[in-house]
């Protein structure tokens, strides 16, 4: 049985400013945000013995260690793709639970707005991986090479199978912006939108609209993960890892699948849910607040279905009107605004917000929240996290 429950805790988090141009290198942003996360925890650089980064991140571990004077790492490595934030927590928690490290820092810094990024994995390394080559060979010659295009394929099929439509998807963005409007740290502070604004926004890749899609920004984030024993004496109330899981299933692509029997589902999210609920010993209705992957609004209803908050094909109707997913609703979502209403750092801010909820410090605080759930990587490999007190 999955033994990750209560073996590690997130004790420090930090999120930089979101901006269109940070005017700093990603390495500097990484170092600054790691320092801020350690300060938040009440730890210092010499306490750190593990580093986990996202594989597409430009700041290598050795550059961080030499910049920050970290002298003694016993554990380090990379995690791939959009699922990375929760998957990096899993990797850190496993290391901590096994004793390979006592204090692991997860970090990510992206100048997503100010750096040109047409072809995601070529922008940083200049190298192409096998999955890039597969896309390059069988998808790109037809002009299918943006994330928006890939996701739109799945969304079209989901609409066809379930009858869902823009009048329903639009509530996801509307609620995220409602939450973001109350968050002074985000890009959309005091900038709520209405469903009419959403419906009036331009179609970019039909059936997706501009307001379905996240916007690139420059930002950095970090979390500090340590043992429950060490967590007891630190500055913050620990957010204990109750469940944490990753999933990849047949014919998974980086962003979604075109080839498996039914593409209008997120089976990876379903498997993650099953495993982490079982590990945590809780049910969907026990979760107080959830931070779902909202890089694309229509993927939120699919996650609600896979997580068991509603039945198959009911996710879009569940979101309609917004009442069930906003603060005070059945399952408040993306309470700091998420990718659509706070800013996009590939789901790192979703983990930070779940920690705030457990501490009781969110600007969209769910009163007395005891269990906070996060999903990163909706469409493609997925990962999830359940945090508790």
């Amino acid at each position, binding site marked *: 049985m999955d033994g990750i429950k209560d073996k590690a805790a997130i004790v420090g988090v930090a999120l930089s400013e979101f901006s269109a141009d940070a005017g700093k290198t990603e390495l500097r942003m990484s170092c600054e945000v790691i320092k801020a996360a350690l300060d938040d925890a009440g730890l210092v650089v010499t306490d750190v013995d593990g580093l986990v980064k996202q594989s597409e991140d430009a700041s290598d571990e050795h550059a961080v260690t030499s910049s920050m004077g970290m002298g003694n790492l016993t554990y380090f490595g990379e995690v791939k793709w959009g699922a990375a934030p929760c998957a990096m927590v899993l990797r850190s928690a496993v290391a901590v639970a096994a004793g390979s490290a006592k204090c692991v820092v997860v970090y990510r810094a992206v100048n997503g707005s100010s750096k040109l990024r*047409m072809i995601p994995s070529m922008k940083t390394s200049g190298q*192409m991986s096998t999955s890039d*080559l*597969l896309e*390059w*060979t*069988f*998808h*790109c*010659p*037809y*002009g*299918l*090479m*943006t994330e*928006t*295009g890939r996701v*739109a*394929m*799945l969304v*079209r*099929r989901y609409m*066809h199978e379930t009858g869902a439509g823009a009048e329903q998807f639009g509530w996801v963005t509307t609620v995220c912006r409602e939450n973001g409007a109350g968050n002074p740290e985000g890009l959309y502070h005091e900038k709520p939108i209405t469903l009419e604004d959403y419906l009036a926004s*331009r*179609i*970019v*890749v*039909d*059936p997706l609209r*501009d307001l379905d*899609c996240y916007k690139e920004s420059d930002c950095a984030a970090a979390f500090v993960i340590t043992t429950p024993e060490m967590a007891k004496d630190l500055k913050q109330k620990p957010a204990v890892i109750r469940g944490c899981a990753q999933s990849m299933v*047949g014919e998974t692509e980086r962003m979604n699948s*075109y*080839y498996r029997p039914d*593409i209008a589902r997120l089976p990876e999210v379903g498997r993650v849910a099953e495993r982490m609920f079982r590990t945590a010993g809780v049910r969907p209705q026990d979760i107080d607040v959830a931070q779902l992957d909202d890089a694309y609004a229509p993927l939120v209803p699919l996650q609600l279905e896979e997580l068991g908050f509603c039945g198959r094909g009911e996710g879009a109707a569940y979101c309609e009107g917004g009442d069930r997913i906003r603060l005070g609703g059945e399952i408040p979502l993306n309470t700091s605004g998420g990718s659509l209403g706070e800013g996009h750092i590939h789901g790192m801010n979703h983990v930070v917000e779940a920690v705030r909820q457990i501490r009781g410090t969110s600007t969209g605080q769910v009163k007395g929240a005891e269990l906070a759930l996060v999903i990163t990587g909706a469409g493609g490999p997925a990962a999830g996290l359940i945090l508790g007190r």
Partner: protein
Amino acid sequence: MAMQYIEGIPLLRPYVDHDNKGFWDAIREHRLVFQKCKDCGLIVHRPRPMCPQCLSTERDWAPSEGKGRIYTYVDFVYQNASYPGIQVPYVVVVVEMIEGVRMISNMIEESAEDIYIGMPVEVVFDDIAEDLTLPKFRRVKE
């Protein structure tokens, strides 16, 4: 409306390797083939080094009948969310072939308003450059 490739921006070319060369060689000759396992007979697309069902590395390139139906599609209408080398609007389709595999491709003529999920299509070969042919699709009668 046929797709327009914008001059001066490189065409995106397939990366031909040992795993997929049989597919692209056939396309150059205006034949559509799929990887078929010599041991268990499973047909797959995209080509891959091993049969995902029996792990055999022995394969043939089985001719396709070239017919299928639209499984899903998208319409690229905003250039900044599309490939800069192709003039928007352009449509990318996923076709479910009668052999049971799916292919990503383009429609040769139809615009998005003419396309629906389930629409019957057949393969055509578009010689978009002297040294580059892509398999694309056109509508056929039910």
